[in-house]
């Protein structure tokens, strides 16, 4: 077995081709499940592996599958390939380099819950990725791996690719389902959860691309093999998307909990340090814009769900963005707030109005027109939003605000014009006020 479990195409050229994939154990797990395992056994194996969702929430995948009612048909599997979190680009690499492993994982999920259809919801910008994936699906159809009576069994399953239209919120699973149904991408009130009331109101499993790519090796090699990797509570391999002010940004596959932020940023086989010898880490965004930023003191936190949470943030999709000492934190927080304001779907009051208000306050702050009470106001607005929104996006939007205020409050104060003195000019090139939303 090679160094990679998910990014195997890095070792095996042309792995996106079916023949190559088949030569390297491809669809063995699919064959094994179909011919020698019951659907429940597949669920049990995934449950036992301890695999947790790689889309952000880290929910145990096998447990999610087991919530699906047995006797309600039709059922669906939806692959969440919306990958819109800033700094996240792992699903793309899987779909481009190793698409069959995703397809095989999705098929296994479908078999496990006895779904008749798999939909892959890809973000609209990934047009070329979608083509690659569609080609792979066509190959698999042609080889009888998808379709009616797969591999001669009495199980039939179809697979379709659907392109989104460029909304971040459509990565949230219920908004994704609405969008897939052809409606405006508004998250649904939960409960009911997709497992019981999903696509077209039918039982549905929604899983992230990376999550599903983990499934074939689990089925092929067994849960106990899988558990030899990672930690007790966060088993298995994970792709870390490293970006920001590092020398070598990119995807890195490593076992969960076996490396720290420091290893990832500075390690020879990983990021190889910052963009400049003299630079230092100022802050880390562990999960794109969505999770609270951590100060440099968190550098030695191991990269698994529990440890990052204990450090005060979330591992989420593990899209680690590194901010060095040249980065203006207020500006960075402003950019993230602007992102969320732009992406807020508008369905619920606190997020729709709160992100707009936050953005207006940041705008005046970075324009040098801040007021002494603005940091307090920002904190208060964010707290008024937190915990009250319909979906997690509203909470995400508060994390850059609250975490930057928590760790870097001084930088805010520097932005507030001092009475009797000339206003402090904002750093050049950082001010950009956009009218309207």
């Amino acid at each position, binding site marked *: 077995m090679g160094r990679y479990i998910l990014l195997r195409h890095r070792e095996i050229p042309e792995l996106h081709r079916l023949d190559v994939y088949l030569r390297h154990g491809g669809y063995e797990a699919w064959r094994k499940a179909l011919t020698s395992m019951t659907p429940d056994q597949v669920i049990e194996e995934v449950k036992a592996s301890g695999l947790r969702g790689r889309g952000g929430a880290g929910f145990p995948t096998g447990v999610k599958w087991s919530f699906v009612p047995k006797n309600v048909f039709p059922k669906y599997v939806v692959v969440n390939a919306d990958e819109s979190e800033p700094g996240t680009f792992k699903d793309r690499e899987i779909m481009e380099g190793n698409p069959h492993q995703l397809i095989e994982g999705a098929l296994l999920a479908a078999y496990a819950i006895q779904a008749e259809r798999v939909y892959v919801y890809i973000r609209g910008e990934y047009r070329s990725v979608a083509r690659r994936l569609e080609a792979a699906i066509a190959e698999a159809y042609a080889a009888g791996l998808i379709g009616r009576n797969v591999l001669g069994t009495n199980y039939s399953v179809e697979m379709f690719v659907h392109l989104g239209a460029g*909304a971040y919120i459509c990565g949230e699973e219920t908004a994704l389902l609405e969008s897939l149904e052809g409606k405006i991408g508004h998250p649904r009130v939960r409960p009911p959860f997709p497992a019981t009331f999903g696509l077209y109101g039918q039982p549905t499993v929604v899983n992230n691309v990376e999550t599903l790519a983990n499934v074939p090796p689990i089925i092929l090699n067994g849960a106990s093999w899988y558990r030899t990797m990672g930690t007790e509570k966060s088993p298995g391999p994970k792709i870390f998307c490293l970006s920001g002010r590092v020398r070598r940004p990119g995807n890195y596959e490593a076992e969960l909990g076996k490396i720290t932020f420091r290893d990832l940023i500075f390690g020879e086989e990983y990021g190889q340090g910052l963009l400049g010898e003299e630079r230092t880490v100022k802050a880390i965004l562990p999960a794109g814009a969505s999770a609270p930023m951590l100060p440099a003191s968190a550098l030695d936190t191991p990269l698994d769900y529990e440890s990052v949470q204990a450090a005060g943030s979330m591992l989420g999709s593990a899209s680690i963005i590194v901010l060095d000492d040249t980065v203006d934190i207020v500006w960075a927080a402003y950019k993230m707030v602007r992102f969320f304001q732009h992406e807020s779907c*508008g369905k619920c009051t606190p997020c729709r109005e709160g992100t707009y208000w936050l953005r207006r306050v940041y705008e005046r702050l970075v324009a040098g027109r801040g007021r002494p009470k603005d940091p307090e106001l920002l904190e208060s607005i964010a707290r008024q939003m937190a915990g009250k929104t319909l979906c997690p996006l509203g909470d995400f939007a508060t994390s850059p605000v609250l975490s930057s205020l928590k760790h870097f409050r001084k930088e805010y104060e520097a932005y507030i014009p001092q009475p009797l003195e000339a206003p402090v000019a904002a750093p050049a090139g950082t001010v950009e006020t956009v009218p309207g939303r």
Partner: protein
Amino acid sequence: MTGTVRVIINDRPIEVPAGTLVVDAAKRLGVDIPVFCYHPKLEPAGMCRMCLVEIGMIKMDPQTRQPMRDEEGRPVIQWMPRLQTACTTRVAEGMVVRTNTLQVQEAQRAILEFLLTSHPLDCPICDKGGECPLQNLTMRYGPGESRFDYADKMHQEKRVPLGDLILLDRERCILCGRCIRFQEEIADDPVLGFSDRGRGMEIITFSDPPFASYFSGNTTDICPVGALTTTDFRFRARPWEMTPIPSICPHCPVGCNITLDVRPSARKGGWDILRVMPRQHEAVNEIWICDKGRFVHHFATAEDRLRQPLIRRNGELTPVSWEDVLEVVAEALSRAGPQAAGLVGDRLPNEDLYLFRRLFGEALGSSWISMDPPIFGGEWVARYGVGTGTDFGQMRPGSLIVVMAGDLEEEAPVWFLRVRGAVRRGARLIVAGGKPQKAERYADLILRYRFGTEALVLVGALQVLLDENRVAPEVLPRLDGLEALRKALEGYPLDFIGQRTGVPVEQIRAFARAIAEAGEVVLIFGREGVVDGEAFVGMAANVLALTGHVGRPNNGLLPLWPHANTQGALDFIGARPLPEEVPVLYVVGADPVGDGRPMPRAGFLIVQDLFLTETARMADVVLPAQSWAERDGTFTSAERRVQRFYKAIPAVGEARGDWEIFIAIALRLGQRWRYLSPEAVMDEIARTDPRYAGMDYGALAWTQPQWPPVGTSRDLYFGGTARPNTAGLGRVRPSEAETPEARWPLAWKAPEIPSEESILAIPTRRLYQEGTLIARTPHLRGRTVPWAARMHPETARRLGLEAGQMAVVRVNGQTLRLPALVDPSVPSQVILLPASLTARAGVVEALPVKFRVEVGNGALPR
């Protein structure tokens, strides 16, 4: 979900049905949880986040299954980590809710502060100001001031027309989605939606014409802010300036409870009706009305209302005093005596109809009175009309609703809403008709028969019921005429019926079986295409009586009568043929000439109306009558619910109530009538007419609390600006079949079936059919359906007619001239005509007359 669960809200226990939403459970305890997006009639959306409360569960000991207790013996409560929305959370056994803690108050303040950041705060010029939930909730729960910079406000369009009737103010919209959900869930015209996202999200309409719905006005009631206003009312008055007067909609047989908001108006030089709002009656219209009911009120205060009596002098109608004119009228009537004839419209209130009958019967000794239009089926409705207590709101699985020979949405819009609601709750629907209609969307079974064969379809159903022995055994002893019916049916084999009606025999069987098997059946019937009305309604009555679906709530016949008091007109006047020629004819509230219906030739013609109708133009004397808004009275709806309406505005000009005029004439004819008001008339009816026994104005004004509670200004569990009902729920006059000892007769009349070759002229009712009253509401001008003869292109081709050309149609001895309209959705072999024609057909004589169709007897029911 069945049974009840116990929950504790603000330390008070309550037992509610499982599945109840927390917000509703709280309301039952009198605890208001503030809401914006939630509406008790709509599915919860959980969008506005105004209703956040603390929710926990009593912790149970897994061993003992008893609540766990702390040291002080109080149950331990596992609180959820976040606040929960009370409008989406359903109660569960052992749930504990707190709606008044600091945490909850902080959340309420937060949501209001957020909402107001984007709100224009133009209350001083906002139509909703004074009855606005956003104002009310802000006063009660909001922050005293906002920390949002006023200059940062985002400005948006303030006048976006969503069609001819409704305007949207984008700045005021709080994006609660109530309007969208109303259109989807209640009206089933899903023509509104959200577009764009975040702060840029907005309400749009995507139908053509925009906001195409008969129910659009209701969205302005339930909109919790002044974002949706009607083009009719916008900027015309502040809510507190108006006096709300309870009334009943005068337009259709539903009898929607409404409120007329009136105010003195300089423009009208007197009082004006500013708007019509729904008034809650959960068994009639819930809290909805249709747009006709809301907007077609301008006729009451129209410029061209008759304001003075007129008399013909030198060929011209000239104003005259009441004294003089009454002398002339009394003179003429007394001279004619028993030869005098009367024709009375079915929009008149009961009191007036009753006095009209007395005037002819007692003062003149004449029995020559009839209602206009002539209606069939009244005696079967009296016998087998829906049972007392019938309520679409109570229909569920096991209930069956049949709609036959009428378009439910066009003829009784609010019944359409309520039937749809019943189907959503599990009732079944069967629609039988000669052409498609909207209600068919929810039908389990659609019978598309050839127009004119309605009665035959029912004969088929009877055939199946008898064949398969599906007569309800418990009703057998009450039925009269079963054997005769059985015998008569022998001449109608099912195959023949299937072939003549065009309905597959299997469908007729399924139809009959569904009726026999349903627990409750309401058969709603109209007159569309009905050639032999007597046979049609008689067969419908047979079907229901045989299967035991009469004499009980939620069972029986429900007629799609044409007007608001057709039932009253049947009760007090009835339809009978008048002689061809009479010395004096007294026409009240009817326009047979304009409607193209036959009218006796008269030596002397008296017409009493609101307007100078076509009939009035021919009159010797014209008497100006009052509209329903100017006086008290009662209407009897098609469900036979007798309901009161109240005087809302003073008389227009010198107009008098029809009842007053009848009294004045009767006194001149030597009668000693002493009624001082319609109330006194109704008192007498309630004493003397057993059908209306006990229905004095006091009894009709009785009310009781209704669920959901709506409409009070202090209520924060908000249903909209629909008004609570404080003026009376009315009383239903029971059907004869309800009397325990009543016999249930069956009917037989061999149905008259038009030959297959004949082309039928079918009067069809459209809600916005061009007419005298609707013409006075300019807002609906774009939507009114012009009079035309509609036909399939194939029919037009066969008749050598092109669209737009004049068609001359002779039906039942009348000659009608109408523009031809070609419409592929019309079945072939028929010409659809407006059910009430106006006399404007005269204008067209300059246009080419292309063809002449002679249509057989009885296509228009007489």
